[in-house]
């Protein structure tokens, strides 16, 4: 007993070290397997607030650029709405207006990125909207240039999202021209490219083809622009194409994003 006690005292630093490392590794592993909020994230009030203040300072210097890009985006959208309305009106019987038959299933919540990363194995970003603005876990996040992530944890005022540059992300994506779809994953360390897997071998693919969201999940609406085919090949012996997609959005520079709320999904959930 005395010997044991002496052993413990003598190696107490080492034992403490092993204990702390075990705790840290448990955190790493538990967090990797089930993405539950067992830990304070950047969506918490303290860290969220700090990032918000820092981002405000940063934004102030870049205000004019943001205003310009928002204005041009606005103009583009107005143009699109106008043209769509005209073409829809042409298809409708003359006694009906558009408003009576438009299905509003997706609702967009505008938000700003206050913290972001691209050079880790699993990247996350934080936005300045949270539960009180209607952000819930599992909602998709898009920008004007394409998809960017999925909400992972929603705090009261801030929310953390898994970036599409995350090793566990899988997004259902399709080739716009012919509708073949597969799952989009991030495998490398390159933030400008993602890999589209499991496209059937008979699909006709060309370099430069547009990749969009397939709409086969509730997270993202159909037809959101993701990127272009840069390269494609078949893995040895496999009957499926693997496609290297160049992302249209520069994840490192994105700033304004929209969180997609799918009201169809809420309806389905309520019915169940």
């Amino acid at each position, binding site marked *: 007993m005395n010997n044991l006690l002496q052993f413990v005292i003598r190696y*107490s*630093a*080492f034992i*403490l*070290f092993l204990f*702390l*490392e075990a*705790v*840290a*590794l*448990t*955190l*790493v*592993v538990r*967090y*990797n397997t089930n993405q539950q909020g*067992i*830990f*304070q*994230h*950047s969506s*918490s009030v303290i*860290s969220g607030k*700090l*990032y918000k203040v*820092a981002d405000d300072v*940063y934004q102030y210097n870049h205000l004019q650029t943001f205003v310009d890009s928002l204005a041009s985006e606005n103009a583009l959208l107005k143009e699109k709405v106008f043209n769509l309305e005209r073409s829809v009106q042409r298809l409708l019987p003359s006694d009906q207006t558009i408003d009576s038959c438009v299905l509003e299933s997706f609702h967009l919540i505008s938000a700003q990125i206050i*913290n*972001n*990363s*691209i*050079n*880790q*194995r*699993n990247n*996350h970003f*934080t936005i300045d909207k949270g539960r009180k603005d209607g952000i819930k876990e599992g909602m998709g996040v898009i920008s004007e240039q394409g998809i960017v992530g999925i909400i992972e944890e929603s705090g009261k005022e801030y929310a*953390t999202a898994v970036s599409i540059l995350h090793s566990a992300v899988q997004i259902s994506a399709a080739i716009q021209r012919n509708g073949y779809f597969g799952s989009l994953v991030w495998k490398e*360390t*390159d*933030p*400008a490219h993602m890999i589209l897997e499991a496209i059937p071998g008979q699909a006709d693919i060309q370099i430069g083809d547009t990749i969009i969201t397939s709409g086969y999940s509730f997270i993202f609406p159909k037809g959101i622009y993701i990127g272009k085919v840069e390269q494609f090949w078949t893995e040895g012996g496999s009957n499926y194409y693997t496609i290297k997609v160049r992302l249209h959005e*520069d994840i*490192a*520079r994105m700033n304004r994003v929209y969180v997609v709320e799918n009201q169809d999904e809420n309806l389905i959930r309520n019915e169940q």
Partner: protein
Amino acid sequence: MNNRDTFRNILRAIIILLVQILVLKRIGLSSQWWWQHGQIFLYPIIILLIPFRITRHYVLLLGFVIGLVIDMFYDTVGVHAFALTGMAYARGVLLAWLEPRGGYQLTMSPTNHAMGINWLMTYTAVSMFIFCFLYFIGEIFTFVYLGQILLKTLITFFMSILVVMGYHFLFNPKR
């Protein structure tokens, strides 16, 4: 005197943490090849600068806590805590290994002022390398990507050590 030093050390630690979270993390937001593989870590210098008189247990606990704080801001649960605790333990071993004849002066800290540039370079380089290596092991958490771990470790190590030594030369901390 003693209290004032402790207070100054804590204040310095907070400022370094803020610089790490608000400036150095944001610098990495670039699509260039260099930044895809490397990051800059300045904050381990907090552990490196702890005075000699602090016992190993406190250093270990401090490493763990500071690691968790950084994890909270980097969204990397446990990874920084793992790496920094490992480095904090290595610090004890390293100090014993690098101990000059006659031992350390317990009122001093491991700085250029107290120990000289050669000693400081060895101490910093070995510690920072251990930190970077453990960090990327924790981040990727499998040896399948051994090549990637080594590449990232080397790039991050060189960028970080430049900044850490830069801190020593710029501010020349005495304690």
